[in-house]
Each structure stands twice: as C-alpha cells, then as structure tokens.
C-alpha cells in the first residue's frame, strides 16, 4: 500500500456521547495526523456549504458525527443532517466526487466505544479511494 494519508475533516456534535469523542481524541488522533476535528453544537449546524468548503479546501473525506435518532439535544438537528447528507450524496457524484467520501454517523451512548473504530474505518475507506484531486491552490 502507498503511504498516502488522506485529509479527513470530522464534524463532531458537542453533545453526542462525550466519552465517545474523548476516546476518539485519544485513540484516533495519534494514528491519524491528517484528521481535523471541528466541534459544532449539533450535527444540524453542519450546513452543506461547510461540507463543500471542506472538500474545496482539500479534504479527501468528510465525516459528521451526531446524536442517535431521537437523542438530538435540539430535537431534530440530526434528522436535518441525515436529509442533507442524503441529498449531498446524490449531488456530489455530479462533480465526480464519490458519495463514499461523505459519512454520517449517528451514535447512541452505549455504542460510543465503537466510535473510534467507525472513524478509523472511514479513514481506511478514504485511503483506499485515494486522493481527491481538487486543485489545492486558492482555497479559502
């Protein structure tokens, strides 16, 4: 395997299982220096334009982590997020960007310990897909 290290942006909801996020912090970050974690107050805060901006700025994969269905702190943010991701997954291929480069994970508290492996899995998948050749110049 090549030593390609994908750039991954992870939008992480503030409220979904703190343990999970902490675990992720310790067990993933060491292994993946190209992972950028951005904390938002809710997965619903992550507008499509944020995701697109991440890709435009050179991300090879974007992941969003939010609360499990029914557990969103703001009631419906995670459902909005689900809808948006679904629509974006349909739109991105029009630009030649595979839908696999975008992942939404809604995690329940008991499943929190599995979160790091879900992120690692995503990093692995994106590594397999290879670099997304969005010209790196002029990104803002």
């Amino acid at each position, binding site marked *: 395997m090549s030593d390609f290290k994908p750039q991954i942006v992870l939008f992480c909801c503030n409220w979904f299982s703190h343990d999970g996020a902490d675990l992720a912090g310790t067990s993933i970050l060491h292994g993946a220096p190209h992972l950028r974690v951005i904390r938002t107050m809710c997965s619903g805060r992550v507008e499509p334009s944020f995701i697109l901006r991440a890709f435009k700025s050179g991300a090879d994969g974007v992941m969003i982590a939010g609360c499990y269905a029914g557990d969103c702190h703001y009631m419906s943010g995670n459902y909005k997020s689900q809808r948006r991701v679904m629509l974006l997954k349909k*739109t991105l291929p029009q630009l030649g960007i595979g839908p696999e480069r975008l992942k939404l994970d809604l995690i329940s508290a008991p499943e929190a310990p599995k979160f790091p492996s879900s992120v690692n899995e995503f990093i692995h998948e994106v590594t397999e897909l290879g670099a997304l050749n969005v010209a790196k110049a002029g990104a803002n």
Partner: protein
Amino acid sequence: MIVTTQKPLDEILDFISPYKNILIVGCDGCTQPPRGIREAETLSQLLDLGGKLRNKEFNFKVNTLVKQCDSHLTAVALKDMIDDDVEAVLSLACGLGPQTIAILYPELPVFPAQNTVFIGAEEREAGTIEERCAACGDCVLGLTGGICPVSRCAKSLLNGPCGGSQNGKCEIDPEKDCAWALIIERLEKLGRLQDLEAIQPPKDHQAVARPGKIMP
C-alpha cells in the same frame, strides 16, 4: 407553489464557465423546495468546487430576492446587488425569475439554475410535493369535490374513472392514486355522488389562448 428541481451541475457550469464574476440569486417566493439564501449559498459552494475540478476560478456573490417575478421588487433590490463587476446572473427561481431579470438587465446574461416542473402542493405525511393544478383556465374543482382531475388523472379525464382504475390506484403507475377514485370517495362524503352523473363536454383547450395575458 411552483415546483422546481435543480439542473445538473455540469449544465450550470457550462452556462457560467465563460464568466468569472457571477451573482447567484435565490427566490424567497413561492418556489418549492425552498430556493432562498441557504440554497443559493450551497449552490455557490458546489459550483466553486465544480469550477476547481475544471480548473476554473469563479467569484460568486450570493443573495436572494423576495419574489423574482415581481419586477418592481426585483428591480429595486437588484440595484444594490448588480455593480459593474457582475458579468452574469444565475437564478434559483422558477422560469419567471430569469425572465424578469433579463428584461430588467437586457445587457446581462441570465441563466436558470432550476428546471420548473409543475404547480404543486405539499403532502406532509408522505413528505412529497405533488402536482395539483395544470392552469387549464376552466377550473372544474367545483364538480369534482375539490380534487383536480386535469393534473392528477394521468389521462386528464373529465368523466372518469377509466377502466384501468384498480384498487384506488392508476393503471399508468400503481404508485399513484387514481384521481377519480379520490373524487368519488370525496363526493360520497359530501353526499354529492349525483355530480358524477353529469357528463362533462370535452375540455375547451382554448380557455386560455397561449401565451396567456390578462389585465390585473
């Protein structure tokens, strides 16, 4: 509401590729799904990304208008949005939007980002938007229990149902309700089933001479 779907990004990119400074305008009016400032912003990001993949750099200004088909409102608001730098406008409104802007700015290229598909209403439960009126110019809702057979019956029958109505579904598409089954159900509830007996003459397709024009 006027229902639109977004054009393929490649088509939009082809339109705008000759230009760099482009104004993208949403419409806060009746168009559905919403095509306001958020959607305009998202589209600008998508096109930015698409441009990068084509090695093309755009400079977008993003804004929205109250009702693009209102030429007065649009003229006033566009004055502040269009300066000498703007080379083209991309509109997220229904087909009326680009046409209104084109008249206001004859020298500026205006492109549609949407395909205008029908006049529809929201079905909240199903989470869909469905066609409900075909602007036929001779409304028959008074005879059909408030359900439009012109837009909802696949054959636009005025004396339905046809023989293909099966268990309330249409033979053309078993996913879709037979409009006439709905009409009968509704008339029954209203105690007006006798309305069905009246034979409707063939529709006058000249009720609106196209292109339509009225004095408001």
